[in-house]
């Protein structure tokens, strides 16, 4: 390998990027924009579910029962309904996500100390949201039920407080680890960095080689004494540089704008991130070597990077939720390993001692991509 030739290819590529001003600007705008938009806007919290109530009882007890739901942050009371048909309609067209039905005689039963029943209808279109809503409903109902029990026991002699203590002798104290406030930007930011660094860099490189093929300028290379390896390295270098700058920008946004604590070693994080970026830009370059048209390069890159990054990187779907086949697919992508590194560095404060296997895998991945690109790229095209 000749250092000068690598530099020559790199500087040619760099100049080409610089002269395409819109592209150069987008290379920095896209990651920062995604970080800002998702940081402020992406919330997986299930809150303020629009709730309708079908109250056949219309008693003080039923109103008090509903009050427990509408007063919580989980539900937003949207009004009383006339009948089940209306409930079905509003659930269908997304005006409501939950409907509580209170049967006649509810208040009477509750007052006289008899078991009572209510019903909840949930919109199950988005199953995980329905599961969480189910959890809220169960918890709120359990509290109502317990208060009712306690009041009833109070009528038998004990004070409500004593009765409550007797009825609920075991309290569960939950401690959430790694993410003290369960819904905050803290858990999201490291994964956001992971996602952005696989969504954007492959697109920087995806057209790098195939563009020259389509334009015919690749024949300059075929006729030159630059070797395949020198050419690929030189091509990759400017994009890795751009992405490294983006790593720093994203890190700064996470730490300074969102106030996410960074507990790990910054140097280790930077090193691991650069290796990760080598992988993601490498995927783009490999695609570029393989296909013959730019259009195919874009589609292939999207399908092999963006789609898996959404589904299999642990960004919105946790890795333990993946079934065996998807689990294997997930581990064929570099994102999984980098997620562990990013989350570890930010939230857990662990470093090289705990995360060296992940770093090693990423490094191996980058080498394998390069080796594959080297094998498949040829200066002697058959056609």
């Amino acid at each position: 390998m000749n250092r000068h030739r690598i530099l020559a290819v790199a500087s040619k590529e760099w100049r080409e990027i610089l002269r395409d001003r819109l592209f150069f600007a987008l290379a920095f705008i896209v990651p920062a924009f995604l970080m800002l938009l998702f940081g402020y806007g992406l919330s997986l919290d299930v809150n303020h579910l629009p709730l309708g109530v079908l109250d056949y009882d219309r008693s003080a007890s039923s109103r008090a029962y509903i009050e427990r739901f509408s007063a919580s942050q989980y539900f937003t009371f949207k009004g009383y309904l006339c009948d089940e048909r209306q409930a079905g309609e509003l659930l269908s067209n997304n005006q409501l996500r939950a409907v509580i039905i209170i049967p006649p005689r509810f208040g009477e039963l509750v007052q006289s100390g008899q078991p009572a029943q209510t019903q909840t209808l949930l919109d199950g279109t988005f199953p995980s949201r329905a599961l969480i809503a189910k959890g809220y409903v169960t918890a709120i109902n359990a509290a109502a039920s317990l208060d009712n029990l306690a009041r009833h026991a109070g009528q038998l002699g004990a004070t409500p407080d004593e009765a409550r203590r007797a009825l609920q002798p075991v309290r569960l104290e939950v401690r959430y680890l790694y993410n003290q406030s369960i819904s905050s930007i803290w858990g999201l930011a490291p994964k956001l960095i992971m996602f952005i660094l696989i969504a954007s860099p492959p697109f920087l490189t995806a057209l790098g080689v195939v563009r020259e093929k389509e334009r015919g300028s690749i024949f300059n290379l075929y006729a030159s004494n630059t070797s395949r390896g020198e050419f690929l390295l030189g091509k990759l270098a400017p994009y890795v540089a751009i992405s490294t700058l983006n790593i720093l920008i994203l890190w700064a946004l996470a730490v300074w704008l969102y106030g996410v604590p960074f507990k790990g070693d910054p140097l280790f994080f930077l090193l691991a991130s650069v290796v990760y970026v080598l992988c993601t830009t490498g995927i783009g370059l490999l695609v570029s070597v393989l296909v013959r048209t730019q259009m195919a390069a874009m589609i292939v890159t999207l399908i092999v990077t963006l789609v898996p990054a959404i589904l299999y990187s642990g960004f919105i779907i946790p890795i333990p939720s993946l079934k065996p086949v998807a689990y294997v697919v997930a581990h064929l992508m570099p994102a999984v390993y980098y997620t562990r590194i990013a989350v570890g560095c930010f939230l857990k404060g662990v470093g090289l001692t705990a995360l060296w296997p992940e770093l090693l895998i990423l490094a191996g991945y980058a080498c394998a991509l390069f080796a594959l690109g080297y094998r498949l790229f040829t200066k002697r095209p058959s056609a």
Partner: protein
Amino acid sequence: MNRDDLALWALRLRVMLGKELRQLLRDRVLLAFIVYAFSVDIFLAASGVSLQLNRAATLVQDFDHSTASRELSSRFVSPYFRVDGQISHDSEAQARLDDGRAMLALTIPPGFQADLQRGQPTAVQLQVDATNSVLGFLASSYASLITSRFGLEQAASALGASGAALPVIDNQVRVWFNPNQLDSWFMGITELLNIVTVFSILLPAAAMVREKERGTVEQLLVSPLSPFQIVFPKVLAMTLVIVLGSALALFGVLQLGFAVPVRGSAVLFLLLTALYVFTTAGLGLAAATLARNLAQVGMLSILILAPMIFLSGAWTPPEAMPAWLRALTYLSPMHYYIDAAFGVLLKGQGALELWRSLLGMTLIGVTVFVWGLRRVRMG
């Protein structure tokens, strides 16, 4: 417009449509990936994910070693939990939670049973790995259900009362449209909608910019074709391909492989998809008029696609979004498409009930198309 004009118009449309389709079909790699995306990719997404808490690895740190403590920990069972063994040291629990081998650690304090028997309130601790907040919530929610039921039974047996006579309020939850909360239905349909979105932005935009980059757009501009006649066949060709792909995915993968119900009309769903592709293609074309080469189109499409997919409402509940962002989602055609597609497939809605979504998509589509066409004319 007389008959000859109309015939000429139809002829131009046919010729241009033929050109676009031939160009698309000759790119074998591209074609292979389109087929892959509408079949294997959707199959993987639908079969590969379960968002429910599934046998979460639980560690038990039992300091009491009593009947009561064993009874409580034995209730952490399938389908939600799986006890992964007893541990004796805090550090061990910490280490296993740290490296992700366990998700929960339950600590039962010494004197647990004695407290219960004396009627003294007691507490157990649960440490939850909340790296994934949804699973963290579900785990603590199910765990508190288990402990409160356990507590109530202990109290009832201490009072000598049977559980049935207690004045409890029983809330029966029924989940509509997907009664068993099958993730495969949600994941499969969502992935299909994502793929449709990706292709309907990228394919027409790339087809347009490619002509610019190669210079063949000059030929088209000096031909007697109007800008509409240049752009329309491109969009039509892509719509045809994408709707065919959607049909393959719907009938071949989702219905056959996962028994996804089509409660409404499948034809309506495909028509809806066609309308959506048209609308979104307009967005892609508008992006294409800003770009000079395909590399710019690639970056621009990420800029459009990522927010569209994430903020469509499939992943992020619109109710939880900040108001300014929820207002912005009304500008995204995918917002309407998601509602309408799930409405037809799972809720059995018809065209009349979907007027809101249809109107929204049409308005956005017409607006961006007109804007894009004006830009082509100037360029």
